[in-house]
């Protein structure tokens, strides 16, 4: 099989078709591991146990972890996939148990699958350990999750030494009933928090507060556990870890595990239309590669981004390959545990040739080394990319990992900047535990768990900070002050009302009809509902597309039906932004960068249907919905008047709205009179405000204003139709091109989804005292730290954006840089590039 892979690699190398699509082919030579002997200090029984299991030495990073842990430090371990991370915390925990059989450890995993995987691994260790140290032979390790039968829970609480659970159980079942766990928590010696890079954004901000609650309860029982965390490689792992611990954390990052030769390829499907920047689809290309691997009998994993793509590829591969149904399997959430387990074993034993998976297979599950891995499109974060690619690789033999780029700007950017994937990961996991909404919810839960005494803080928050929150909760009737303590007094169970995955506030429940019955499929916070689940919207949930039939804002529910479409929807919105406070600002090339608190008032006016593959617009519809207010944190950049003057003088400024020449006012009124002050598309007459007058052929395309403003080029339109007309013309301005590229690039720095960020452009912004301004803001009320980070990384962001646009091979804008260009108007690429140049402090006056 290894021979096969080497042969295939050779043939790919020599194939012109293949090679021409490979942007990067990086070969990492075979690496031998660095080993050290089992430390002498390690309890005899544990040493014997490891030897029995064939572990005669440790990788240096494991030994380092064990050493630091034994000196009582908190640790975060960030070594690569399959580098033996689990042992880094298993050993310290078992050491503690060897020395004090009363000690307890709490393991927290983000997924059930990981929990059970670790449970089995730990049981394996304990079985052997019990033989070497008989007083540990009855030591119990248990999984405590939603599937744990009630009948067993009592026994688990009283007997377990090592408890494996997930954040939700800790949040809703353990902490609110901590008295039942008094014995366990009193002896809590270790807390293991695995895969912390998953805990970012809203979820991460909740977890940080959950850890505060855990430590608060532990302190009550006079327990001061030590923490060991693990993370994928991110740029701020240590800082991120310390935000959960609120204390110093040592970093173990030097991976000393061995691996064979690794080939990492970035594969960009060929351009089909150079000018419009359209490439062949990543899925189709990936499928071709997968078929070759299958033919050559090379064990591989194909990672797709959605459950739907998994099923699509699976069907194709199973049907075309002669033994497809046995050789090729799917793996995603929704499969039964036994089914997944069977696949994991099949992979380890080699009787399954290929697995098509979602990221469900990315986290920690032990499947052994695989010959080849293909990623269909960039998985969304570099950390995930590396974890998925890391599935390829064996101790001694050659492996290959290929990422097939899609048309997304980030995919395209990474094909030109492979260093981010191959060398330094610029990603940071960001959380904001101080988000008032999230904090408030956990203070409710914490007050339920134990009364707050006068002078109590919460985590590293002082009593001064939380006093205001407690007083607020008292005023809202859930706390009472008695003897200088705040007591929970409501007949409610707050943890049940707090979802760790949303910021709080009102929710819209999403439901679909199955056999005449309403089935809930999820929920969405109310502000997001307006743009994500307006009537007619295509909503993706668990890989299934739904169309929203009805959005009931009074009953807070939306009715969805599953549909098969080749398009998605984009809400058309008009937003107004208002500054509440400017927290910080600083001069930068071309103007001033700022961050602060803002209020965004958004009116969804309609939506358009965009084809998935080509991103071409299939049509648009109007909507009438009430406006929504969002109070949040934003990062904004104000262009200075001088900058605009320079750009204007070079004819690189396309955002002047009202410079339509001296006769504009007259012509505009004449056009409105002629059209009887009525919208010429929808027929709505003017009310208290004048309708807009629209240039049928864009103003800028005429040599003089007289020609552009001729009555036969003008038409009266209501604001809504006007916006649609502009959209249809797709005249892109430099500012909107800039917004597009920043909005698409920022998620790479922030490890977030594009939908976590809002963007707003205004040539005359109130945030910048009437100067042109671009605003990026957190879509979670009160912010989760994205905008603050953008402010700090302004320089890197505009540099990357400049590189991306400058090196994009398209003519005048494409989906991979400043957005698709227009049919009648300009794509705005030239203007956007000029803006990016001045933002980078480059001199553009000489062309």
């Amino acid at each position, binding site marked *: 099989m290894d021979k096969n892979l080497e042969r295939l690699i050779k043939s790919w190398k020599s194939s012109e078709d293949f090679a021409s699509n490979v942007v990067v082919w990086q070969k990492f030579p075979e690496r031998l591991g660095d080993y050290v002997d089992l430390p002498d200090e390690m309890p005899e029984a544990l040493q014997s146990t490891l030897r029995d299991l064939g572990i005669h030495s440790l990788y240096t990073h494991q030994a380092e972890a064990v050493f630091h842990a034994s000196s009582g430090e908190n640790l975060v371990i960030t070594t690569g996939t399959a580098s033996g991370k689990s042992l880094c915390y298993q050993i310290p925990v078992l050491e503690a148990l060897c020395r004090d059989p009363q000690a307890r450890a709490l393991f927290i995993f983000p997924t059930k699958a990981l929990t059970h995987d670790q449970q089995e691994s730990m049981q394996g260790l304990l079985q052997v350990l019990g033989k070497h140290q008989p007083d540990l032979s009855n030591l119990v390790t248990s999984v405590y999750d939603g599937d744990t039968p009630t009948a067993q829970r009592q026994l688990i609480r009283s007997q377990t030494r090592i408890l494996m659970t997930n954040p939700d159980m800790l949040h809703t079942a353990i902490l*609110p*009933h*901590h*008295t*039942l766990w*008094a014995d366990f928590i009193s002896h809590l010696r270790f807390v293991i928090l695995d895969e912390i890079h998953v805990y970012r954004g809203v979820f991460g901000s909740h977890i940080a507060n959950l850890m505060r609650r855990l430590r608060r309860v532990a302190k009550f029982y006079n327990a001061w556990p030590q923490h060991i965390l693990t993370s994928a490689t991110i740029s701020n792992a240590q800082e991120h870890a310390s935000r959960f611990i609120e204390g110093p954390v040592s970093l173990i990052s030097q991976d000393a595990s061995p691996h064979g030769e690794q080939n990492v390829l970035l594969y960009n499907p060929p351009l089909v239309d150079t000018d419009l920047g359209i490439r062949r689809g990543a899925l189709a290309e990936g499928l071709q590669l997968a078929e070759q691997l299958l033919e050559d009998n090379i064990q591989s994993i194909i990672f797709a981004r959605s459950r739907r793509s998994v099923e699509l590829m699976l069907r194709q591969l199973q049907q075309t390959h002669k033994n497809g149904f046995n050789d090729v399997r799917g793996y995603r959430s929704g499969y039964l545990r036994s089914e997944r387990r069977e696949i994991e074993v099949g992979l380890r034993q080699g009787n399954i040739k290929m697995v098509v998976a979602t990221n469900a297979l990315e986290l920690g599950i032990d499947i052994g080394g695989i010959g080849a891995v293909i990623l269909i499109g960039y998985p969304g974060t570099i950390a995930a990319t590396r974890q998925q690619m890391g599935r390829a690789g064996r101790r001694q033999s050659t492996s290959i990992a290929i990422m097939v780029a899609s048309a997304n700007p980030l995919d395209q950017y990474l094909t030109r900047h492979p260093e981010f994937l191959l060398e330094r990961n610029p990603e940071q996991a960001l959380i904001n535990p101080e988000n*008032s*909404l999230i904090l*408030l919810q956990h203070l409710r839960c914490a*007050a*339920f*768990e*134990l*009364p707050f005494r006068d002078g109590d803080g919460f985590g590293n928050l002082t009593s001064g900070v939380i006093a*205001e*929150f407690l*007083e*607020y909760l008292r*005023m*809202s*009737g859930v706390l*009472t002050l*008695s*003897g*200088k*303590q705040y*007591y*929970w*007094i*409501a*007949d*409610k*169970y*707050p*943890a049940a009302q707090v979802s760790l995955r949303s910021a*709080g*506030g*009102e929710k819209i429940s999403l439901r679909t009809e199955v056999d005449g019955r309403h089935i809930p499929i999820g929920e969405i916070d*109310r*502000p997001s509902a307006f743009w994500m689940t307006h009537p007619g919207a295509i909503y993706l949930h668990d890989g299934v597309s739904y169309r929203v039939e009805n959005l009931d804002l009074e009953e807070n529910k939306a009715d969805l039906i599953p549909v098969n479409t080749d398009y998605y929807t984009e809400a058309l919105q008009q937003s107004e932004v208002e500054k509440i406070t400017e927290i910080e600002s600083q001069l930068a090339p071309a103007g001033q960068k700022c961050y602060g608190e803002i*209020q965004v008032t958004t009116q969804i006016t309609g939506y358009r249907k965009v084809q998935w593959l080509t991103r071409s617009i299939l049509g648009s519809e109007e909507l009438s919905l009430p406006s929504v*207010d969002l*109070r949040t944190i934003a990062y904004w950049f104000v262009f200075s008047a001088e900058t605009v003057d320079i750009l204007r003088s070079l004819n690189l400024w396309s955002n002047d709205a009202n410079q339509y020449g001296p006769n504009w006012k007259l012509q505009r009124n004449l056009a409105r009179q002629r059209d009887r002050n009525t919208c010429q598309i929808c027929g709505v007459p003017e009310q208290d405000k004048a309708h807009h007058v629209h240039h049928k052929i864009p103003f800028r395309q005429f040599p003089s204003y007289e020609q552009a403003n001729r009555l036969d080029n003008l038409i009266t339109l209501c604001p809504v139709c006007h916006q649609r007309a502009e959209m249809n013309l797709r005249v892109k301005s430099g500012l909107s091109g800039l917004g597009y590229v920043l909005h698409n690039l920022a998620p790479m720095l922030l490890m977030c989804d594009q939908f976590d960020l809002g963007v707003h452009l205004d040539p005359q912004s109130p945030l910048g005292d009437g100067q042109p301004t671009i605003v990026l803001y957190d879509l979670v*009320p*009160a912010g989760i730290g994205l905008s603050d980070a953008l402010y700090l990384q302004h320089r890197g962001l505009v540099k990357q954006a400049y590189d991306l646009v400058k090196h994009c091979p398209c003519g005048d804008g494409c989906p991979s840089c400043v957005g698709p260009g227009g049919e009648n108007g300009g794509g705005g690429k030239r203007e956007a590039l000029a803006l990016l140049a001045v933002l980078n402090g480059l001199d553009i006056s000489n062309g």
Partner: protein
Amino acid sequence: MAESLADKLKALGVQMGAPKIQALPPQKLNVEEILGLEAIRHQDDIAYVFKENYTSSHQHGIINLGSPTILQPEILTQWARTKPINPEGLIFLDTETTGLAGGTGTFAFLVGLGWWSDQGFELQQLFLREPAEEAALLNYLEEQIRRFEGVVTFNGKSFDAPLLNARYTINSLQSPLKGIDHIDLLHLSRRIWRNRLADRSLGNLEEQILRISRSAEEIPGWMVPEIYIEYLRTGDPAPLKGVFYHNAMDILSLAALYVYLVNFLEAPSRMDAPQGLDMMAVARLYEELGYIPQALTLYDTCLSTELPKEFMEQALLRFASIYRRERQWTSAVRLWERAAGELGSIAACVELAKFYEHCDRNKTAALEWTERAEGLLPTLPVQMKDYRVKLINDLQRRRVRLVK
């Protein structure tokens, strides 16, 4: 002026909930006087207790609350797995709490206690004027409970005891309820009245069994948390009087129910107007705990009462099955024949067929009863489909065996 947190949270979309009368500081009313509480100094703390004494002639419904003249019957001791306890060794307990959801954020603000003494039946209600007094209440409660050998509750094993245990833990105290004998009358009541009463709540047992009706002061249990929380907000204890009444009645009824059950278990047939169904439940209890002679007597008594047909059949079959186990075939056959003859019991026919085939070796009689069972098949309720299929198969096999 700096924006308040409330305004900010409102702008972020947090709803404070229903507007409440917040701004008013709690009134400074004399809670002890209004509720008639006695301040009992206890170590360094003060516990607030309402006391009432019911003389031994006090009648609570059909029950005289004077100490039960008989000791706890052995059957109850067996069933509850306690040591034998005299009535004077029992303390009755019922709590009123700030919530029904459970969890560490719920506490008991009123703990009702009752016990028999020389003075009759003594009631004490321990009250939290405010949450900070909890440790004092718990200490006083511990001292009271420690004086007794067993505690009697209604659903206390699932509710009151775990809740109080949690409160002791939170106050870093040892709970007196851990390790003490505990008789939970809910479970016993369920067993005894399962077939007769659809609703086995204390309230309904009070009406149906003890013949008590509560006065207008009574407030329903689900309103209790709200009334206390409202009191903490307003400082006005007057509405709590209804809660004290409710809790006092619960304690009295608990004691009365105990008296009733003790008498009933001791001698079911001696009760006024004994109910066949209740007696049958007791018979089953005796049977399951291995008191066979008592069980036989009770089943026999049951048969002379007005039992609904299905329970009559059940009584006959269970009665017969005891004799079968004891291999007293004549008695068993007599009962089966009665069930088959009077009630058309298929199960009895099958038992008889078995008996004649295997014990009496009388193939003709066995075949006769098999056919009789088959003939009765159409009377089986339709919903017992699986049972019917199994039965048909069994009967067929038996018949094949018998005609061979």
